[in-house]
């Protein structure tokens, strides 16, 4: 494929994370040992990025609010942890066990995604939010009250230890896989169908979009990746406790998505990394009763950003001072409308006018010889 301007832009995030993985991987193989807190931070960041990117699929692109993302993660963490500890005596704790754990975690979470996705098809936005919230609480409660032999009950499930020096690399690779799947999906006809549903469900149906299929697809994929994040979590923490996966955690993931800009994958990645870093650093600054200031900060971020981005009264201000408008001055290139590349958005170059006369003078026969208007398709 040609290396156009747009294509390069599409691969920047792979390149950045891929390069990071490669450099750190080589350093690790060369015998360099990162200290434990760095390793743990990188594991946490990859978990957060996977969670934020997958939630962004539902919240940013499908336009539905899910408040149970931590619930899907919980399912993935418990089931994979259980499978890994069952396999450990016979298979050891190598990459193969990790792979099986990943498949189990993703599969179980995806199954829950289907179960929750089915009401999603019938319910309006705010009801759906409540259903996902309820799902998260149900999952939490079920694992909390499980017997000690099955899932460890209220004490939590102990999971096998994995070689800490390598785990973060698997985390990075899983981030890359998540990006690959989510971005390729969104940059295809299927992604277009999902955003069409977000923009106008009735019109999407009327133009032949199978809304059921695409809603379920988005939900299930999103849940599956939350499950994968759960698997990483269980490997990273040695113990899985259902209390950790409550409503508050789901909100934290939502904050990452909102802070990154809804439907902006790179934004979600950056804000997930940033918030994870703050989560490890703030408790050292804000000790004791001050710790709650962190929640206050997230609450304020959520409110301010959403109002700023959505208030109808601020539209003029936003159009004037957004990222694109500010950087346009730097680029300062006048674009000839006839040569604009597809999908390179230009809001203000072409003068718009209403004129039906133009249509009348246009030749209806397609200029491209391969295209016909004949029903049943092009030859």
């Amino acid at each position: 494929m040609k290396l156009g301007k747009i294509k390069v832009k599409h691969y920047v995030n792979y390149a950045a994370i891929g390069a990071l993985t490669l450099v750190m991987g080589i350093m690790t193989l060369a015998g360099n040992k990162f200290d434990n807190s760095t390793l743990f931070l990188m594991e946490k960041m990859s978990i957060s990025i996977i969670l934020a990117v997958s939630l962004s699929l539902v919240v940013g692109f499908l336009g539905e609010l899910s408040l149970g993302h931590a619930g899907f993660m919980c399912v993935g963490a418990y089931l994979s942890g259980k499978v890994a500890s069952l396999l450990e005596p016979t298979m050891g704790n190598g990459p193969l066990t990790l792979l099986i754990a990943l498949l189990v975690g993703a599969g179980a979470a995806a199954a829950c995604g289907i179960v929750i996705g089915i009401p999603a098809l019938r319910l309006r936005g705010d009801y759906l939010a409540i259903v996902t919230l309820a799902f998260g609480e149900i999952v939490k409660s079920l694992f909390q009250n499980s017997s000690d032999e099955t899932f460890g009950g209220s004490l939590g499930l102990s999971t096998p230890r994995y070689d800490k020096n390598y785990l973060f690399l698997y985390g990075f690779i899983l981030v890359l896989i998540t990006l690959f799947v989510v971005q390729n999906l969104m940059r295809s006809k299927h992604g277009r169908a999902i955003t069409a549903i977000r923009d106008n469900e009735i019109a999407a149906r009327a133009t032949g979009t199978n809304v059921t299929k695409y809603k379920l697809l988005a939900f299930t994929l999103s849940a599956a990746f939350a499950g994968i994040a759960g698997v990483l979590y269980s490997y990273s923490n040695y113990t899985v406790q259902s209390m950790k996966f409550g409503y508050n955690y789901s909100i934290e993931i939502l904050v990452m998505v909102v802070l990154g800009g809804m439907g902006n994958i790179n934004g979600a990645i950056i804000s997930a990394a940033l918030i994870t870093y703050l989560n490890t650093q703030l408790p050292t600054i804000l000790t004791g009763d001050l710790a709650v200031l962190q929640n206050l900060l997230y609450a304020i971020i959520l409110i301010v950003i959403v109002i700023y981005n959505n208030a109808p009264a601020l539209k003029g201000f936003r159009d004037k001072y957004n990222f694109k408008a500010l950087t346009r001055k730097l680029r300062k290139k006048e674009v000839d409308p006839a040569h604009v590349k597809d999908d390179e958005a230009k809001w203000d170059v072409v003068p718009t006018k209403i004129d039906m006369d133009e249509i009348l003078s246009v030749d209806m026969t397609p200029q491209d010889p391969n295209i016909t208007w004949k029903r049943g398709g092009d030859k």
Partner: protein
Amino acid sequence: MAEYILETKGLGISFGGLKAAQDVDIKIRKRQIYGLIGPNGAGKTTIFNLLTCVYKPTAGTFYLDGEEMKGLTPDKINRKGIARTFQNIRLFNNMTVIRNVMVGLQHRPEFKCSVIESLLRLPRHFKVEKAMRAKAKELLRIFDLEQDRNDLACNLPYGKQRKLEIARALATDPKLLLLDEPAAGMNPHETEDLAHTIRKIRDGFDLTILLIEHDMGFVSDLCDEITVLNFGTVLAQGDTKTALQDPEVIKAYIGG
């Protein structure tokens, strides 16, 4: 090939006792431009919603090209060959103009490409995307929207939004196109042009068109046949000139 492209038989729907449409029989021949008129609240848009399966009829049924269509979902009916525009424009506002059209195109069988093929970026994905883009551009060219193809749909002026909605409907490859008040908000000059455009679309795309309109000049100029509705029932039907002169119709419009 059936004699009529669209045939409704005793079509009706009631919302909790209120009969919004009742015993509606419409027969439309291939390549006709057919008008559906009537005072406000007569049930015109309800008929459109029945024909696109947004509502399920409580009585009667309808056939497209001889095939019974009752009970399908709106997306299936679209793929069977009925496309529509909406009275209050419904575009995908936060998507570019060309993508709006591509959403219409992508459910055609010739642009089939599974989720797996797209995820793994197999050759078919690129082939289909390229073909769809070319076809979308051709459609936009006809409607003089090619220059605007990378604008967000919500940033288009009103008239262009209407045209884009028609282009998107045509992209789904319909046999029957339903236009809900296409001339609403247009001045007489624009309305006249729209009439020419609709004829042109009919000829160029080999279509049958059913439209709702309030502008009587527009209807009598354009439509071969009409059905006049009032309170959900058929008041008069047939050749446009004759039906419009029906005393019942005049009474319904002028009152009395």
